[in-house]
């Protein structure tokens, strides 16, 4: 009976085939390690953000006059409103923490290399959309930092030569950041960007399941198959990986709920203290900082303090910042190494990847503190080393001596 019903459906919609392809017969390498959890946890956070976002939307008021008060209404008068909001704010920070880990995993194990170039590029789009979502969402509570962060970021468009000023007014919809700006950012944050994000993540997963998961050894698991054509060094995603993930999700949620219930402002990093004050366009805060997940790029923006060829320092900073975010797309074509994983790459790859990580953290710190000449110098040095990882990659990855790669995966 059940079989009959299933085949009725299958003739009209490939349900069984889809389940097999993406779950029960999707081969997951057996040597995947803890770094591979970030992907599934990102999906969990996406769901948390979508659900909490919908509930926030039920009580949020997207006007300059009412936005700030409506957040407090959610926090105080809506039943468990504080929980919904803290879920969303914690979720946004965790989203970024996870996507950075996820990207780093890809960089470490060469998951961007052939045949996964497109998978990587599509993945980068999710990062980009997340940046846009983070920014637009940050403005919505309409606190002081929301307002001034919007002011700083939007003014970057004004620094573009020739068209800047007009472009800025067009983007803002007003001569200064106002309720009109808030409304359009709201529309982007709740409709366009989440839709785009879901679509791009969907494509990301489709692309992943087309080329198959990479693994920490960077070897091709499809090379050795058993008599049924199933790769030897893999296990079916369902139920084995799912069971593993379920347990990992439990651990993750404990961590998540710990922040959400006990340290919801995360020491001023998850919710900035300055944002406890409503937006005031006549009162600039002493020290404008973006949310922690943008601080490496904010440091790059501020590192450029000199104009070149008549281009303003601000515009050049904007370009460097944008390049810092966009450069990841080029990775598949910058890496000329014959091996994928950092385990078998040479000393230079290891050195530059470490340098990149150090640069990222130092820039992150520098972006969160007020600048002074020494800090600016450091920001310049580490912006340079950040890019060195990428721009020198075609050279060092090609000429360095790599270790021999095993035929099959290794299990530690």
């Amino acid at each position, binding site marked *: 009976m059940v079989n009959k019903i299933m085949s009725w459906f299958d003739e009209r919609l490939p349900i069984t085939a889809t389940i097999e392809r993406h779950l029960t017969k999707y081969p997951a390498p*057996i040597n995947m390690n803890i770094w591979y959890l970030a992907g599934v946890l990102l999906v969990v956070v996406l769901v948390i953000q979508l659900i909490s976002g919908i509930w926030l939307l039920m009580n949020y008021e997207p006007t300059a006059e009412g936005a700030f*008060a409506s957040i*407090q*209404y959610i*926090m*105080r*008068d809506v039943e468990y409103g*504080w*929980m919904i909001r*803290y879920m969303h704010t914690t979720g946004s920070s965790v989203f970024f923490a996870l996507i950075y880990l996820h990207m780093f995993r890809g960089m470490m194990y060469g998951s961007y290399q052939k045949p996964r170039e497109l998978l990587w590029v599509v993945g980068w789009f999710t990062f980009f959309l997340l940046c846009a979502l983070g920014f637009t969402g940050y403005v919505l509570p309409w606190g002081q930092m929301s307002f001034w962060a919007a002011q700083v970021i939007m003014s970057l468009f004004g620094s573009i030569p020739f068209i800047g000023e007009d472009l800025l007014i067009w983007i803002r919809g007003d001569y200064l950041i106002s309720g009109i700006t808030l409304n359009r950012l709201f529309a982007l944050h709740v409709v366009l960007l989440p839709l785009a994000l879901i679509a791009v993540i969907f494509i990301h997963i489709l692309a992943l399941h087309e080329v198959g998961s990479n693994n920490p050894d960077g070897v091709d698991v499809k090379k050795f198959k058993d008599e049924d054509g199933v790769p030897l060094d893999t*296990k079916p995603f369902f*139920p*084995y990986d799912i*069971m*593993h993930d*379920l*347990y990992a*999700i*439990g*651990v993750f*949620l*404990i961590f998540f*709920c*710990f922040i*959400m*219930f*006990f340290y*919801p*402002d995360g020491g001023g990093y998850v919710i900035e*203290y*300055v944002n*406890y*004050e409503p937006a005031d366009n006549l009162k600039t805060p002493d020290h404008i900082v973006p949310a922690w997940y943008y601080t490496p790029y904010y440091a790059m923006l501020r590192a450029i303090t000199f104009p070149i060829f008549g281009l303003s320092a601000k515009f050049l900073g904007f370009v460097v910042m944008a390049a810092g975010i966009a450069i990841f797309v080029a990775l598949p074509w910058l890496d000329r190494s014959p091996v994928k994983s950092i385990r078998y790459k040479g000393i230079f790859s290891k050195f530059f990847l470490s340098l990149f990580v150090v640069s990222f953290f130092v820039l992150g710190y520098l972006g969160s*503190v007020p600048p*002074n000449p*020494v*800090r600016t110098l*450091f920001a310049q040095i580490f912006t340079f080393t950040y890019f060195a990882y990428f721009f020198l990659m075609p050279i060092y990855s090609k000429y360095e001596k790599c270790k021999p790669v095993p035929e099959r995966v290794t299990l530690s």
Partner: protein
Amino acid sequence: MRYLALIFLMFSANFIAESSAPCGSYVGDDLEHVGICDIAVVDPTDKASLQRGAQLYMNYCLGCHSLKYSRYKRMAEDLEIPLELFKENLIFGDQKIGDLITIGMDPKEAKEWFGNTPPDLTLEAGLRGPDWIYTYLKSFYVDESRPLGVNNMVYENVGMPNVLFNMQGEQRSVCKQVPSKAPNGGLKQDPLTGKIVTVEKCGFLEVVEGTGEVSKEQFDTNMKDLTNFMAYITDPAQTEREMIGFYVIMYLIIFTILAFLLYREFKKDLH
């Protein structure tokens, strides 16, 4: 290498150093550092302290500072004050128990009077931190050069009058002889007489004896209660949040253990 280390040291001082003095020019118990806030006691479970704080707020602060994001009723319930008692003693004017805690002062006029509209304080403890508020409240001193005759050590040239003047008494900024520190960290002594060498330091706050309604200790306790109340009103759900959080995490721990056991069973298939 040595040079590198030296350069690094020189830079690192600048790199990390934060010239932050959160409490302005306040001189606390630590004579070495100026601007370090005194520590407030924030305990949302101490209902008696919160009730006293609420009483102080309603009597001394609410004239100018609204709590416009919170409601009377919620506050009465959270602080376990009977509604009737609350209505009689803590709601002034014709506001209803379900109303938001707003004030009648016109913001524009207030700006003319004080130079700035007195801000709403619902979220002040989130913005400044409880320690700042506690120290600020204690730091008013007589300064004839200011329009209202008072100044504040934490918030220089603040536009607010010292509404706590009667309670605290006349507080002045005074100079004192304090023992000076020797380079080795101990107290500096005169090599001949063995006496401790002192230097003059200013900015100490002292209440002229007999001018206040309450003792210094009592005043500090009152300000702690008031601060505690302001911390509560910023985050009224804290107690409930932490309680729910505890149960949620307990549940998740059990879930995770079960998920782990399940995972272990499935893992056996693979070998």
